[in-house]
């Protein structure tokens, strides 16, 4: 069950914090072109054992959110403010060494491109052993034994041989299995998967998604899955957070987001994708225009320039007033100036058209 608190009202810490709680997260980078506000006030929380999909287009801030949780933003030169609570511990205020101790043990991450994410000079087994020894005081032999077990566990055939292979000697799917094994080797509470299958072929993607689901059940891991593919979201997520322009724009359970989305951006995404489970529309109905530049975000609603319905809001509020992320139903939050009834009406219309295909 997802529980999102609005940032202005989030000041009081509840005695019982959820497993993961992000409060008022801001991340910015200084670049030659100006300050990039990659994350512009994100607050959300996630219960233990759930799978949250963070959905968005490039530049929406979904990957940066993940890296901020992992404490990797500072080493990339970014500025982070806000609080990140993981299992009762605030991470953003910790010393770099303290976060480092948690990385790879309490929380782990896998990345988009398994080829470039594995070090080309070291054997895959050694790279996993290194992850074990970074956090636990056990012998090398024991660590290697454990690594071998894990490789078998993530479905690598002939693991005894592969443990001494170099990354380039493995196929893409195999490498991503190694990455997953490496991430899970210290039994982390939280696993963040950043576009884990984007670089893989579709048949391999299916295998990897299946593996993540299986392991999640087995280890009881909480998963944050970052993706742009709504098919994958539908496949594995319990909860969905839709990001746009560095902000959350809609949050809810997966079924809610697919069956009763209210934010026009979410609707736009659903109508943009070609899909194989519906009758073929003659034309797709894409969101017009281009995503905003993170250097120069619109002052009001970040989606306003591409929104088909902003003219329905009185006084041009979309242009000047920043909408808040507000609950519209239990566990369903939407950031939109449109009145709830109007949003639901629009949503119903769009979904009817989508289902009816031919336009």
């Amino acid at each position, binding site marked *: 069950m997802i529980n999102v608190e609005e940032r202005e009202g989030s000041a009081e810490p509840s005695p019982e914090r959820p497993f993961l709680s992000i409060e008022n997260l801001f991340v910015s980078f200084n670049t030659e072109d100006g300050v990039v506000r990659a994350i512009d006030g994100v607050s959300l929380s996630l219960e233990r054992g759930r799978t949250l999909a963070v959905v968005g287009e490039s530049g929406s801030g979904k990957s940066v959110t993940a890296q901020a949780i*992992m404490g*990797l933003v500072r*080493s990339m030169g970014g500025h982070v403010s806000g609080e990140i609570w993981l299992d009762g511990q605030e991470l953003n205020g910790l010393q*770099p*060494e303290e976060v*480092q*101790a*948690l*990385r*790879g*043990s309490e929380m*782990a*991450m896998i*990345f*988009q*491109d398994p080829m*470039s*994410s*594995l*070090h*080309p*000079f070291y054997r895959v087994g050694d790279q996993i052993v*290194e*992850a074990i020894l*970074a*956090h636990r005081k056990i012998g090398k032999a024991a660590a290697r034994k454990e690594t071998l077990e894990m490789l078998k566990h993530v479905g690598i055939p002939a693991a005894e041989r592969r443990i001494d292979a*170099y990354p*380039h000697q493995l196929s893409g799917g195999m490498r991503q299995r190694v*990455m997953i094994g*490496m*991430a899970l080797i210290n039994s982390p509470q939280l696993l963040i998967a950043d576009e884990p299958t984007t670089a893989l072929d579709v048949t391999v993607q299916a295998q990897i998604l299946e593996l993540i689901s299986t392991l999640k059940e087995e280890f009881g891991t909480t998963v944050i899955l970052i993706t742009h593919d709504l098919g994958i979201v539908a496949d594995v997520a319990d909860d969905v957070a839709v990001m746009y322009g560095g902000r959350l724009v809609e949050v809810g359970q997966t079924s809610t987001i697919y069956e009763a989305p209210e934010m026009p951006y979410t609707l736009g995404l659903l109508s943009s994708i070609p899909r194989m489970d519906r009758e073929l529309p003659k034309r797709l109905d894409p969101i017009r225009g281009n995503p905003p530049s993170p250097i120069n975000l619109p002052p009001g609603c970040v989606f306003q320039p591409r929104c088909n319905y902003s003219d329905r809001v009185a006084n041009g509020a979309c242009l000047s007033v920043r909408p808040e992320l507000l609950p519209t139903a239990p566990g369903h939050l939407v950031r939109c100036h449109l009145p709830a009834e109007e949003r639901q009406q629009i949503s119903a219309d769009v979904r009817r058209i989508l289902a009816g295909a031919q336009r």
Partner: protein
Amino acid sequence: MAGYIVRRTLGMVVLLVLLTLAVFVLFSLMPADPARLTCGKACSPQIIENNRHRLELDIPPVEQYQRFVSGIFFGRTYLADTKRPLECEAPCLGYSFLRNQEVLDLITKAAPVTFWLAIGGFVTWMTVGLVFGIVAALKRGRWQDRTVMGIALVGYSLPSFFIGLVLYFFVILFLHLLPNPQWKAGMPFKDLGGFVQTMLLPWITIATLNAAFYMRLTRNQVLEVFGEDYVRTARAKGLKERTVVVKHALRAGLTPIVTAAGLDLAYLLGGAIITENIFNLPGLGSLAIGSVIASDLPLISGITLIAATLIIVANLVVDLLYAVVDPRVRVG
């Protein structure tokens, strides 16, 4: 791996043969007649002919080349038809009639100078280049970075003869911090102090230009590798920052530098002509230039062979080293 080395070695031999052959061909195409050049003031056609015979230029170039090659393996005899023949024992790279010495002796005498010059310069520039380059990368955009890059730009834009002369004039002639450089046989083992005093400025001269290049190269490589996904993975594993930088980032980032460095060192071993000249060092570079000016074919051929061998071997070593460091290019 063994097969690879054998194949590379064979290729190397072919290349060396072609190279020395090219030297012979170029030499025989030269418009000036070496026999005439060495004839001097008291010259007559008879003397020219005599010189030609003495220099073995009266036999076809192909046979000259054959003698050169067979001399390397079996030795050879010059002036065989006189009562004072000259024996040159294998490995014979030839006999320089202009210097009245065996080419191998000349090279053997010059090689240590160039060796120490190159090694010292190499160590200096690599140390400076790597340390400053890494510091600049780690402190990217800050004053340390800007300072290092400023130095690199200045160092890079100065020609080496200028650096050498300025150092000589300033350090030796005006400040009297060091005596005039003077290479003595047996250095550095015989006279370590004199060796350092003699070599310090040449090392700095050679290092300045290269260090500037390596600072920039190192900085760019390290910065590039810090953006690599596997460095992010290393951090995500929870490794110590030190381990991330040294084991994951630098090892990968510095590997291509090994290639460049190995070849640069090999070129230097072939002779650092300008530096050797300014600092009066009897190395291979000045030997080479002298032999070219004097059209001393045996010496030119010998030095070409040695220098080319050095460069080709260095190339091979670098490739093998690269294969050791980077499993992606490993063979076998």
